[in-house]
């Protein structure tokens, strides 16, 4: 989402730019990539695109990184940058070092020239394992969680590791990390949510938060509380300081939760895979809405704000807006 334009990626491998003057009115598509006469589709686009004043960057499941002209959706590079394996996470643009980072399932983080899409001479960081999560860029440092359980902290300008040793979890790290109050929060397929000291790379809590299934969704931190959805259908709330429980009990949804939640108008909004949307009280995890909203579409994508409403992109490509105060929702009509 950027100004009055929404860029929505669908599993079918298309990226569409919608002009949105009123979220409740009909959305008109400005362009679709690839254009109708292009046979090759990028298979699927899982990562959130990066939008600048003139370019839209994204990585796709066809192993490639694309740069499109924001105004008309035409490719800006001579050819997309190609890695060896699919790109599942989002690409990251670092204006300070003028580098576009793409982390591929081939285990390598590539530093590209955003203007040409070519690999920067010294920027190639091999993690030694698959990368499924989106890396995090904060204060010139790139944090990269990988599937062998390691979390790397790499200087964005030089690709040199910051910590003496990478942090090591007992199994793959799969969620995008969040940095809050000097602590990195990252979830893994060992069913644990870790808090890591961002300057040392060591565990910040005495014990990680343990669930019954993977922590895949990016956690949300607000008011000193970490809201962490899990694939065990629950949302956990713990204090950022020490990892102690912030709610009497975790909130139980109806299906695994992959999408990052959002706080809007004092309501914690969570959507599960089955497309059921819950509006919770962030203080105790109780339902605020009279009933959850049932979109009847699978949802994996993170929630984003669109004005005062929440925009949800469903797996099949449908879009919905939800009122965070009541849970009323509308399917977006596009043309």
């Amino acid at each position, binding site marked *: 989402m950027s100004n009055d334009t929404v860029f929505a990626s669908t599993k079918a491998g298309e990226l569409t730019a919608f002009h949105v003057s009123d979220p409740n009115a009909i959305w008109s598509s400005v362009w679709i990539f690839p254009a109708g006469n292009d046979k090759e589709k990028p298979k699927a686009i*899982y990562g959130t695109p990066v939008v600048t004043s003139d370019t839209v960057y994204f990585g796709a*499941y066809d192993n490639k990184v694309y740069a499109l002209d924001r105004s008309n959706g035409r490719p800006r590079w001579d050819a997309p940058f190609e890695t060896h394996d699919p790109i599942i996470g989002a690409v990251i643009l670092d204006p300070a070092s003028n580098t576009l980072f793409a982390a591929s399932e081939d285990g390598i983080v590539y530093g590209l020239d955003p203007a040409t899409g070519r690999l920067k001479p010294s920027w190639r960081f091999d993690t030694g394992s698959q990368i*499924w999560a989106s890396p995090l860029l904060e204060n010139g440092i790139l944090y990269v969680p990988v599937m062998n359980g390691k979390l790397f902290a790499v200087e964005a300008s030089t690709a040199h590791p910051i910590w003496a040793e990478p942090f090591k979890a*007992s*199994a793959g790290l799969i969620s995008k990390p969040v940095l809050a109050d000097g602590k990195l929060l990252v979830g893994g397929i*060992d*069913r644990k949510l870790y808090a890591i000291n961002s300057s040392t790379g060591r565990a910040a809590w005495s014990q990680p938060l343990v669930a019954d299934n993977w922590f*895949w969704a990016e956690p949300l931190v607000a008011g000193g509380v970490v809201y962490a959805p899990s694939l065990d259908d629950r949302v956990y709330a713990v204090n950022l300081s020490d990892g102690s429980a912030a709610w009497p009990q975790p909130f139980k949804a109806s299906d695994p939760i992959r999408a990052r939640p959002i706080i809007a108008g004092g309501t914690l909004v969570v959507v599960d895979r089955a497309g059921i949307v819950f509006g919770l009280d962030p203080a105790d995890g109780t339902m605020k809405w009279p009933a959850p909203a049932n979109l009847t579409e699978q949802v994996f994508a993170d929630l984003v704000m669109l004005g005062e409403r929440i925009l949800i992109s469903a797996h099949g490509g449908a879009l919905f807006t939800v009122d965070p105060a009541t849970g009323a929702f509308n399917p977006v009509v596009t043309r």
Partner: protein
Amino acid sequence: MDRLLRRPQQTSGAPSRPGSSNVMMIVIAGIVLAIIIAINAGYDPWNALFINPLINFLILFNNIFFHNFGIAIILFTIFMRMVTMPLTIRQFQSTRALSAIQPRMQEIQKKYKDPKRRQEETMKLYQEAGINPLGCLVPMVIQFPIWIALYRALRIMVGGTPESLVQLSQRLYPWSYLRGSVPLEQHFLWLNLGHPDTTFVLPVFVGVTTYLQQKMTTTTPTTPEQRQQQQMMNWMMPLFFVWITLAVPSGLGLYWFVSNVTAVMVGYMVMGRRIDWRQLSPFAVPAPAPAARAPRPERESQPRREREAEIVDDSGIESEATPLEAERKTHARRRRGKRKNR
């Protein structure tokens, strides 16, 4: 294994003995009971009883065998083939038994024009030879759910997309030894097990082995129409599998390839020297109809097992004697008969 291979032919494809019927009934009752329990417990029985155990078992194989999912798929496929070996052997034995009575089948086809009478005579022949006409099909039907479950399990495991990984997370048993090893390493030889093989190597392997396996399990057609249909199927099925392999994750293609190779090897063990490898070639000239070479009156006096041993068919399953030797024997008998008449 040896005991199974040496089992008298009469039992192959024959109706089950009372003992094995009881065992079969107990197994079926057990499966039905497990399905009822799973439904009552709120589980989807297909997933709870078949797919999820298979997924966890495959991951266990992966962890045991060097965390190499390609090797795990190969060994698991061989393991499953071993488990279902008695069924596969029965299938080959039934095929062989059906092939053995084809000359007499042809005679019935020629002799009786009335369909009802023809059917009666055919059933009588089956009964006489101790053959269950569904003997070839039953083992396949029993193995089919296993194959479908494996197919679905592999699709989930090597899907390689976030959606399939979320699905996988819901199916793993709460054992860190299993959970810690996903996502599985998808590279094996030149393949990415989660993606179709676009080099055409694996699809061609799958097509060739499907063809071989099919040729080994088809019986001799009794009419030209049947022969034409069978020839078409012999080509259509392998081509269909080539096409499917080009579209599905290559982990599945690997499974089909290994499964076919194992079946061909089992077929070799069952058929032994009876396989005429030249007849398996798609360019082979079909062997002449057995009835044309072996005159019925002379054979009537021979014991049935001997008669069956002389039969050659174009499915590649051959008698102890080669076609040339059979011809020589027939000529020799005719010559002897002529000398006696003089």
